[in-house]
């Protein structure tokens, strides 16, 4: 069967395929197409990103002055609780699920995910638990005010005494989120293990898929621990059991163990796919193979393994004995090694290449630099004596926002820009993209760098008010925060106007190597008319070898790519 790619030869598509890309109502339906579900996840997640960001704007507004003078303290505490909860459970997890959903079947040469209906169910749970979470603003007593960790005994205090209170709704929403995530994890892991195209051994699979598989493995084995802790917390809160309530014999520190046993690996669930994105993008925009592909691929699983044995580093100042603190210091420091492998590999990939600074590359580079900084402060935090001083201060808040916003969100933006043409069949406006990058990069550094000296000087986190000595850093941080709020505007403008009016995109606008770039933009209904047979490793830039088997296609491919 000859597979001639017409799209590659004539970049402008005249006729839209009937019932497909132009059929926009399908994005509001219960579709089982992974491409539709992927975009649904991304868009819904972005809406919650804006909501969580709006809460952050109020927080920064409060913190621009030392006194608690903008909102009531109970309101402030609800704000930071919901900001964290929304950003983690309603933005980063769903948006990365969306990217994985969209890209994995295409990248491995499959028609869809292993369980398309389960996929749709898992997605539609997201708006449901999102609404439940937001509804907590409307119940007496307000939303949860115990932080996104929900540590007992504070989370058990329930001042209104009602059964249905903000904390209850919070636990319910998080539990549903866990169920949705596990459904997604089962789906993705099964898909990657069982549905790769012929010829695609694990070491011919793109790193993004490796990273996603590693991340979803964490979800599978980590989430249930959180569920267990959440169930026990819920019973303590609603029924009066004594699991974590010290007044009746319970142990609040055990909750911390349950919580962090999942929530530490959870941060790797967030960053691993972003690492995967970086690994995909740098070869394309430097026109060079990924340096040390095998090391990079395997390091994802080394990180997964190690991520399971570091959780106590969140509890160095808690009710943990000295030997435990030392043990987990060692394991935490160790995890920097596979992470360092990736960073060096990316630098080596870029070095000596032919670099093009398109918007995706700018975001990826910015993300890499921010991650480098965050990794260094992370190693500092792993050192127990230092952590004792800065634990629960703004130093930690600065550190993790550098990771989450500076690296992960910028990586997510990079991915959205890079695959926007594939997903929508349109090109975005490069100028707006570059503006978005500048505002974001400056905003991230202005917002989160000052948090480090504030923490070093002893400013605790989660405070609605602070001593005047911290005012200077907070003013800078708030200005950065407002800049970040503004930075979302060119992005929104770009996405919406480009999707409607952008120039039509060819199958492979970046001349990238990968199965997803062999199909049209957007791809047809079941992705591949004939499942290709993969013959070479990914990222074969400069090598002039065909990616898939077909005597005719190899000449077409090479003429298309060189």
């Amino acid at each position, binding site marked *: 069967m000859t597979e001639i790619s017409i799209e590659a030869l004539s970049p402008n598509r005249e006729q839209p395929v009937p019932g497909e890309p132009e059929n926009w109502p399908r994005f509001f339906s219960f579709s089982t197409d992974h491409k539709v579900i992927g975009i649904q996840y991304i868009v819904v997640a972005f809406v919650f990103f804006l909501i969580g960001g709006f809460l952050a704007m109020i927080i920064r507004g409060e913190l621009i002055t030392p006194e608690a003078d903008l909102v009531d*303290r109970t309101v402030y*505490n609800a704000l930071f609780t919901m900001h964290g909860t929304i950003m983690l459970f309603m933005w980063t997890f769903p948006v990365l699920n969306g990217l994985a959903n969209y890209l994995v079947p295409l990248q491995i040469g499959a028609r869809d995910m292993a369980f398309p209906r389960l996929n749709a169910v898992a997605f539609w749970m997201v708006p449901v638990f999102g609404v439940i979470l937001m509804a907590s603003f409307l119940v*007496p*007593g307000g939303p949860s*005010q*115990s932080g996104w960790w929900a540590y007992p*005994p*504070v989370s058990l*205090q329930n*001042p209104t005494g009602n059964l249905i209170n903000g904390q209850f709704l919070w636990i319910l929403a998080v539990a549903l989120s866990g169920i949705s995530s596990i459904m997604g994890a089962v789906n993705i892991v099964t898909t990657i293990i069982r549905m790769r195209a012929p010829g695609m051994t694990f070491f011919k699979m793109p790193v993004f898929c490796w990273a996603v598989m590693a991340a979803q493995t964490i979800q599978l084995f980590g989430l249930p621990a959180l569920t267990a802790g959440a169930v026990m917390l819920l019973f303590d809160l609603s029924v009066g059991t004594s699991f974590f309530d*010290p007044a009746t014999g319970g*142990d*609040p520190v055990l909750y911390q163990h349950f919580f962090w046993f999942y929530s530490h690996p959870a941060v790797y669930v967030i960053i691993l796919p972003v690492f995967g994105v970086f690994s995909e993008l740098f070869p394309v925009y430097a*026109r*060079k*193979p990924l*340096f*040390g*592909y*095998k*090391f990079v691929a395997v390091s994802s699983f080394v990180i997964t393994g190690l991520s399971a044995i570091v959780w106590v580093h969140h509890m160095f100042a*808690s*009710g943990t*004995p*000295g030997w435990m603190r*030392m043990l987990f*210091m*060692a394991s935490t*420091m160790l995890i*920097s090694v596979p992470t*360092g*492998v990736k960073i060096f590999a990316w*630098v080596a990939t*870029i*070095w*000596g*290449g*032919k*670099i093009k600074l398109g918007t995706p590359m700018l975001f990826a580079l910015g993300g890499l630099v921010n991650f*480098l*900084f965050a990794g*260094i402060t992370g*190693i*500092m935090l*792993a*050192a127990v*004596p*230092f952590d*004792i*001083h800065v634990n*629960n201060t703004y130093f930690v808040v600065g550190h993790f926002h550098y990771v989450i916003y500076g690296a992960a969100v910028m990586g997510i933006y990079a991915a959205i820009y890079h695959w926007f043409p594939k997903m929508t069949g349109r090109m975005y406006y490069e100028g707006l993209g570059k503006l978005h990058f500048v505002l974001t990069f400056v905003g991230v550094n202005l917002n989160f760098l000052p948090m480090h*000296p504030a923490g*070093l000087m*002893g400013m*605790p986190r989660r405070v609605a*008010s602070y001593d005047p000595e911290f005012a200077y850093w907070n003013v800078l941080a708030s200005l950065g925060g407002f800049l970040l709020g503004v930075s979302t505007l060119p992005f929104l403008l770009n996405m919406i106007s480009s999707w409607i009016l952008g120039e039509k995109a060819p199958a492979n606008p970046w001349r990238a190597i990968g199965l997803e770039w062999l199909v049209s933009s957007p791809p047809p209904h079941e992705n591949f008319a004939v499942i290709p047979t993969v013959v070479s490793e990914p*990222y074969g*830039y*400069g*090598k002039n070898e065909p990616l898939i088997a077909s005597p005719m296609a190899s000449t077409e491919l090479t003429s298309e790519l060189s």
Partner: protein
Amino acid sequence: MNIRLILKLAAIAGVMTAISLWVGQLAYTWMPVPASEEALLVDHLFSFLTTLGTFIFLGVAGTLLYSVLFQRAAKYDEGDGPPIEGNLTLEIVWTAIPLVLVIWIAGYSYRIYDEMNILGPMEHMHGGAAIAAPLTLAQSTDAPEAPEAPEAIEVHARQWVWEFYYPAADVTSTELHLPNHRRAKLTLTSEDVLHGFYVPAFRVKQDVIPGRSIDFEFTPIREGTYRLRDSQYSGTYFAAMQANVVVESSADYQQWLTDVAALSPQPGLNPSYDEYQVKVENRDNRPGWKTVEPAPYPLVNYSGASVLPER
């Protein structure tokens, strides 16, 4: 290898080292004035980590910057770069060096933590064995203080006020006084939720856990007034749960204890309670949700000042 290249790299490494060492010295100024033995140790560790971190950051970011500035594709060049896929030696080296570095850092940190020796036993309050034994390896090298028994003080935390009890003198206060150059041994308890005992100037922190009694030690070395802050989020007025820590000479400390013991109990400091009264009397016009009521003013011999003295 090319001699010129080696010399160039050596020069760059030299400049990076110089900058890193300089930033490492700067790191001391980012911390509050060290007011305890432990602070000196922690600041050394932080300086070391900053020096190392700066070097790594400059190296990696510098390489990237060079690449991005000088290795861009020519304007109409749509070709690929060289198909370099890896270099086993390099990959092994950049796995091994971080491993060695990390072991070095961990070892140094372990020694510092051991020397600090701040955490005592954490006993469950109603009898029963201690759930955690302290690290009983190498003892502190501070020989001069060893013979003197630590000053024992009880710290009671409740939502949202700190109360201090000095058993030797049977004195209570809402301001912590400590004798200079004498090891302080605090027994931390909470009456309700998790709190965090944190004095940035001393670089010490310990979560206070309800249902447990935690022994915690450190040695102040500098007279002055410092801030104690609640570091473990504890509810509505968490941010207002602060107190002053006054380090004074041993003689002044003893004098203070004697003077204060004579004072009859009066309401101590409780800014949370003051704020709550404003809210209850609706004097601030800001909507809010129902909150746990703050504990009322503790009856103490000495209340102290609510804010740090002007510098």
